[in-house]
């Protein structure tokens, strides 16, 4: 029994929501907010999105999509091309390999998991960009971004959770 075209299209649209939302987050990440103190460093929303969907819907946030998100983000922020792609792939790969630990467990555990994986990504990012510019970059902004991302993680995880339970129940 083949599902109807309309059903398949519906499924495709619903399934593309995580990626579309992540693209929007990449755009929002560069919009100047004007909030004092926030303009210089913004939390890395993309790592949150990739981490969350890699646990709960890995087939909707595959490695190629992570790569594309990274390229988009690098184009927008002016970071070395490939850097964010690499970081998102690291987040995706590590999360996917540890998926069993997180799935169906309490929220605190996935927050803790995000803390570890995002720290790894931040360190790799700092190391790579220091190598890229052949200078030791200041470490504080990296840690600041990490701390900010960690703080906003529950908010986004909550939002994604609502989305997953309503829009993506069938996919």
């Amino acid at each position, binding site marked *: 029994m083949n599902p109807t075209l309309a059903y398949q299209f519906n499924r495709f649209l619903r399934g593309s929501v995580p990626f579309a939302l992540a693209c929007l987050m990449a755009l929002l990440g560069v919009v100047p*907010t004007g909030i004092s103190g926030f*303009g210089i460093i913004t939390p890395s929303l993309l790592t949150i999105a990739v981490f969350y969907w890699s646990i709960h819907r890995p087939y909707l946030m595959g*490695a190629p999509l992570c790569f594309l998100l990274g390229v988009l983000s690098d184009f*927008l922020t002016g970071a070395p*091309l490939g850097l964010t*792609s690499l970081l998102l*792939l690291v987040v995706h790969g590590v999360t996917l390999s540890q998926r069993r630990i997180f799935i169906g467990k309490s929220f605190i555990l996935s927050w803790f998991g995000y803390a570890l994986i995002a720290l790894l990504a931040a360190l790799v990012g700092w190391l790579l960009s220091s190598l*890229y*510019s052949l200078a030791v970059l200041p470490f504080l902004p990296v840690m600041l971004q990490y701390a900010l991302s960690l703080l906003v993680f529950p908010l986004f995880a909550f939002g994604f959770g609502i989305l997953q339970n309503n829009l993506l129940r069938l996919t």
Partner: protein
Amino acid sequence: MAPRQGNVFKLAWPLKTIIQRSAFLALVSLAVGLLFLGKANIAAVDRLRMATTDFLAPVLTTISEPVSAFHRAVARVQSLTRLIEENERLREENARLLKWQAAGRALEQENENFRQLLNALSDPLVLPITARVIGDSGGPFVRTLLLNAGQRDGVRVGQAVVAPLGLIGRIAEVGDRSARVLLITDINSRIPVVLEKSRQKGILVGDNSTLPLLEFLPTTSTVAPGDRLVTSGDGGMLPAGRPIGFVSSVGERDIRVQGYADWNRLEYVSILRYDLPGMSGPEDNPGDLGESRLGESRLDAQ
């Protein structure tokens, strides 16, 4: 995972994992490859980057509009609460500034007279293009801004970008309708500067922190916190005498500079079209209004 899938799919499952694994590794190596390509400054990569930002610039402009409107509303409410104090303060400041204006006019006239006496060459006219900030890199690895003006508006690579309070950076990449500013705090930024009082020259070097470094000063120079810095105009790329910031700390090994610009509230900035005669061709730096779309609209209005 997915409940209704055929037998073929079940058989293909291990194959799919293998393909996925190798695709992952291929993508990781592709990302590393892109990093190397970017380091090699391939022109095609730059073009692709600017084409993407050009394509997304209208989207960013649209998104940033309500965000800045919201921010303005918040600022307005905040200012309402302290209207009286603000008024008082502004009145005092206005009185003080009027005195400065009188002094400034007198000095400008005097300067002009001396220039004429000495038959000195005056600096070429600087024409600003004002553009909106539509993007802010926000990451820890680069310090750049996106503007909604580009090649067709007369923006060229290398032009200086100033905020109301002082220089913030230079144009690093330019697309058709968007441009990227390399801020003075970015690790790749080098700006020739001069200490306003002692007239000693140095280079302002960014390191991705909020306070750039002042380097290559003469060894005999004396610097104290609070000394003001202006652009020196060396190299002929930036107009001379534009304010940048002041020395915030003098350490054993490094001198840190605090910029005048308010990094959190950059809404509109001006790009300075500066053209030293004979130093740059018209395609590098169109010094007259005729070249740009902005100029056309301005001429039409007259």
